[in-house]
């Protein structure tokens, strides 16, 4: 499940931020490494919501800094919203 979530997070990140999914790791930072700005952050949250059929809490979601933490947050949200 976690591997699947990781791959899907990488795929969505690449689509939204226009980068190569194969270059992304759990440590890749959205802002620091991929140059995501505030609008990009909003798009990412919406795109993750759509991909996983969840609704992430805005404040907490927007604190997530990297792909690994995004995976953990999404998994937690999936569990909570089952």
């Amino acid at each position: 499940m976690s591997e699947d979530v990781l791959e899907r997070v990488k795929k969505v990140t690449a689509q939204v931020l226009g980068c190569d999914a194969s270059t992304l790791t759990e440590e890749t930072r959205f802002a620091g490494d991929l140059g995501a700005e505030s609008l990009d952050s909003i798009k990412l949250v919406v795109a993750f919501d759509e991909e996983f059929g969840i609704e992430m809490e805005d404040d907490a979601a927007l604190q997530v800094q990297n792909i690994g933490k995004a995976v953990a947050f999404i998994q937690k949200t999936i569990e909570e919203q089952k």
Partner: protein
Amino acid sequence: MRLVIYEDETYGRLYPLTYLRATFELRCGMHSAAERIAALFPDAEVAYHARGALAKILPQRYPDVSVNDAASLSGDVLLVNGRVIDRAVAAIAGETDTVWTKDGDVLAAAVSAEKAAAFYGSGSAAFLADAAAGLNQVEVDWRTVTWPWDLVNHNADLLTKDFAAAGRDGVDGDLHANSVILGNPNQLYIAPGADVLPLVCLDCREGPITIDEGAVVNPNTYIQGPCYIGRDTQIVGAKIREGCSIGPVCRVGGEVEESIIHGYSNKYHDGFLGHAYVGEWVNLGALTTNSDIKNDYSPVKVHAEGDFVDTGCIKVGCFIGDHTKTSIGTYFNTGTHVGLMTLLVGSGGVLPKFLPSFIWFAGGAITKGFGLNSLLETARAAMARRKRELTAEEEELIRAVHALTDEERRAAVKKDRRKLLGR
């Protein structure tokens, strides 16, 4: 005599302007409706009655006024609807056992304290329908406010009438010798502490101008009456056309016409604002502009009470809720309803005509943005710049409005999701 200025159950028609304030606090002319009504009954002791959600906020704003307190009533009571903006209401002073109506709406009632106490318990519509049965009924034609555009439409005329009623003219502040007055100088009043700097033209030919205490009018400004510039407001090189009321502690530049800015808001730079009502703590970024007439000159529709309402007017601007912020180059369509505490980023074209409260408009789409807590932090930062704090009661009210507007916001965000993602 006790004068109770009340808000009736139609306050929702005046959203977004009444999310954080009572109907009778809205500005039209030189004053709010409550200020005007109270001044018309100078011997009365004033009390306010409004929806329960405002019960904690109103005493903070008006510490000397009884709010929603039936126990404070005694003797004869005059109930006046806070939507009345007509000075003719003064004629009812001294009347008893009478209700004044217009097209089925109760606009005022003169009752005993016992009957008025029942009013506090039952809400205005139920009480007045019941009480009216036992009272003399008089049909009147007083001017009232029902929709946000009514405030704008009546503003110029009320500015002229309020100026005449105030009975002040002349220069009690400073007027630089290199500024000019066009028209009759007794149609101008510059209050103590107000300062009109060089190269300002005050054009009173079409109506009076009041520049209130502490206001500053900077060079290269043209102000056309009727106009009211509020306390401690700065006009920073602007073209203020006829029919404008600018409340206290505002910063205004660019072009403004037939508009009301409630107070504590900024429109510092170039850009046009016309036939609009702007709430408090709004910041309009440079080149923010609204349309106030359609290209085909047809009547304008505005979103109100869940639907688009035909105003019957061809000149209608925008209605901007408190704490909204716009980026540079934000363009509003004719008749736009902008909710409370929105954050809007221009997209090159006009924004949607209905922007629900607390949304971010970014990337050409309505989004959740960074959520309510982030917006509250922005509000605190903006208020701190004017040495004001967001009180716990204000935050509680904002959170209540957030809950109230949740459904319409979710629907708009969901509708725009695919647009945001470019799908």
